[in-house]
């Protein structure tokens, strides 16, 4: 859905999105990386299980919620990537303990 304007330079890192490795650059948000994937969505809604993707990119819509390193409902537009980060698209509601 989105593409980077430049090839990543030295310092590029890899994050894991639902088991698929994804290239990322220091400083960019997890939501930005999600929007470059073949499946650019971040979560299924708790009410109707419909797909949502990052919408506002500034922390006010909560549609970019995903599981990051085992923590559910992370606002991925506010979370910078780091090497080896594990991201899972969030399926419905967050559960207690996650």
């Amino acid at each position: 859905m989105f593409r980077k304007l430049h090839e990543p330079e030295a310092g590029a890192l890899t994050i894991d999105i639902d088991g698929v490795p994804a290239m990322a650059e220091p400083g960019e948000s997890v939501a930005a990386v999600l929007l470059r994937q073949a499946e650019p969505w971040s979560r299924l809604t708790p009410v109707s299980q419909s797909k949502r993707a990052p919408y506002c990119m500034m922390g006010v819509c909560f549609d970019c919620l995903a599981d990051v390193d085992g923590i559910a409902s992370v606002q991925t537009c506010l979370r910078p990537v780091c090497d080896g980060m594990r991201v899972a698209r969030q399926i419905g509601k967050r559960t207690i303990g996650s």
Partner: protein
Amino acid sequence: MSRLDLLIVGAGPAGMAAALAARRHGLEVMVIDDQPTPGGQIWRSVEQAARRDDILGPSYVEGRAVAEAFRASGVIYQPGAQLWQLEPGFRAFVSRNRQAQVIEAKAVILATGAQERPVPFPGWTLPGVLTVGAAQILLKNAGQIPAGPVWIAGSGPLPLLYAVQLLRAGGQVAGYLDTTPAGQWRAALRHLPRALCASGDLAKGLSWAAMLRRKAPVIRGVIEIEALGDGRIETLRYRTADRATATVEANTLLVHEGVVPNIHAALSLDCTVAWDPAQDCYAPIVDRWGESSQVDLFVAGDGAGIAGAKAAQLRGELATLRVAVKLGSTSEDAAAVAARPIRRKLDRELAVRPFLDALFRPRPQVFAPADKTIVCRCEEITAGEIRALASVGRPGPNQIKAATRAGMGPCQGRQCGYTVTRIVGAAQNRPPAEVGFFHIRPPLKPVTLGELAALHQPAAP
């Protein structure tokens, strides 16, 4: 932590300018911000994005020096921090790195900026539909643009600016659906002389529009849009004022109908707000220094009414001047003298607003979505459900919220609040100023029990 002189919420233009001024007055000041780096939205990622300076332009690059001065100023800066409760006096409850903390301060400046006005239409929740602001943030933060030709639908300076930046970056605009109501320029015209003698921004805007017309189809007078697709946008349907309907292929749609102040924190402390008919939103009532109806609580920048980044910086400085007087680090007289040139500059910045507000007044359809449209994105409540309830008795927004859950999800009404107010108003034939807004209560952002547990040791006085 001891009680701070000043807590500033937000590290955008207003927050940074306020903090820099506070340091000049020797105040102990903390800035909390939910973003990972300073700059707010206008200067998002400005510290890292140097390679995109040519695309983003000089008013973006300006922010880098401000961020640098901010970092070097000795301010206590907590990025990645979310304010979820503010108590008078002041005690701020803030979560950071999954731990809640209490911050105490003698004065607070809310520099919480603006968000894009929610624009509900059928299909606006589909992946592939984003705001124009979101796309611009992606350009600033990650150097990325839509992979294919993009549809832009909206009104205002931002979609024009983004379209130009996108074209400079080598992107493609499939079409630009201008939703500015035809003939609105007539209403704007009377504000033009004042705007013209005050600002070079108008010339910039005209040059953007001209570049766009050369490079992309521009369709004017668009009054309705609809996004269709299975799991993502595939088709875009739009209708113009002369009733022509078109259906086109689309894989990305960016929408924008202006910006509105972020007022949740101010509302949660019962700051008096007033409806601004020119900007179609609520804004806290503040005095000439930015002090709200709550003593020692200031609102600076777009959070106090939309006026842009330069005005935000000036309003941040004014707020700090008054805080410095109240805390005894400068005199009333010295502050009055210092404020004079700031107010002169501020007047110049504000001069262009009435023209822009009148020219880019949102089309009425923004406030009256069709029944099938989802209004509350979090709880998936449609306009039809809200409308049906709005004419049973005479409910206000809070009764609608209790009955439908609209506004109860994680965004806490940031996406549906104004639409609920408008639908209720239309059903009851009442102006939005009379209908009011959701009652905003803490937590302002979702907070977990785990984060709360970190509060078990009260902060040392």
